[in-house]
């Protein structure tokens, strides 16, 4: 269990740049070196991570930890995996407070915010594209109509995002289920 915690701490420490780098580290460490997970299970895991909420590294740690040591394993692996990132980003936030009065740092942040926004908008575009294509090629048109309709309702009524996601998600899910029964 300690060995597993150390492994996931290491993965958490060196997965800089997001989900994909975490996956390649898991591939190298957990699959190739230690054999705690088969290559097939890793592909499954990536598919599950696509389907479920949450960061992929947390998903992988919970999945592997559960398989190896049950619930204590899942909790340990997950905590070990997120610890380095939490500590380092906390320290950067502290450093930022120290630098608050520095003109040059202020200006750097201003430009950096524009860059972050660009990255976030790109992330949004990818999410929309994946959502429209995820139902298979036969459903793209229906998905697009549902997406546009949902967007119109969302913008006009301005409901709470949480309530909206649950309501629209369930409604579209039921619609698709009914459709697939009718067509079958």
């Amino acid at each position, binding site marked *: 269990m300690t060995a597993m915690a150390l492994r996931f701490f290491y993965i958490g420490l060196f997965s800089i740049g997001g989900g994909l780098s975490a996956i390649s580290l898991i591939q190298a460490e957990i699959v190739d070196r230690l054999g705690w997970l088969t290559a097939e299970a890793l592909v499954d895991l990536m598919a599950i991570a696509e389907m479920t909420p949450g960061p992929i590294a947390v998903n992988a740690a919970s999945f592997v930890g559960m398989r190896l040591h049950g619930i204590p394993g899942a909790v340990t692996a997950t905590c070990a995996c*997120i610890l380095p990132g939490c500590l380092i980003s*906390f320290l950067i936030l502290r450093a930022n407070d120290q630098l608050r009065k520095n003109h040059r740092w202020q200006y750097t942040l201003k430009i950096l915010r524009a860059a972050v926004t660009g*990255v976030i908008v790109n992330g949004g575009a990818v999410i929309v594209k994946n959502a429209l294509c995820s139902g298979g090629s036969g459903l793209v048109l229906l998905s697009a109509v549902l997406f546009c309709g949902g967007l119109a309702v969302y913008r006009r009524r301005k409901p709470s995002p949480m309530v909206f996601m649950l309501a629209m998600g369930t409604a579209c899910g039921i619609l698709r289920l009914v459709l697939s029964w009718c067509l079958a």
Partner: protein
Amino acid sequence: MGKICWKLFTSMLALSGLTFGGGFVIIPLMQRRFADELGWLTQEEILDMTAFARASPGAVTVNVAVQVGARMAGAAGALCGVLGTILPPLAILSALSLCYEAFSASPVIAALLYGLRLAVAVVVADASAAMAMEILRGGDRLRRAVMGAVLLLSLTTGIGTIWLLAGGALLGWLLAGRNAS
């Protein structure tokens, strides 16, 4: 403070439990929740935290949650933010590791996931468009150009976001010197 911690925990629990896709998807929603709805932080502060989270290793969402928590309620807040963020995936993945085959084969689950993905896409599209409009309306020419260039590069090339952000920071650092003199 207990109230803040509880609000933080439940907010992150709901956001993390519903936000499919990982990474940056959740940031516009956190902005909406913590800046617009609760008024705890400004939009700029959350963007800064996102940049710091990206510069750190690990998952962006968790790293932003820890910073929001620390800023609002110290160590207890950081803990509550992180717990709320990791509990949903921890519970879901632990359960799934036991019954993955049944889950992935179920047509009901597939239909629900399809619907949820569409709904999340609507909310995320709206939120990220609002963020882009903020820069387009309020920013100067340089900031608009930086945002456009980063968006274009990440849409069309495989350059990692960490490098795009590092480039943006470097540009700001260099131009700040010129601006001051």
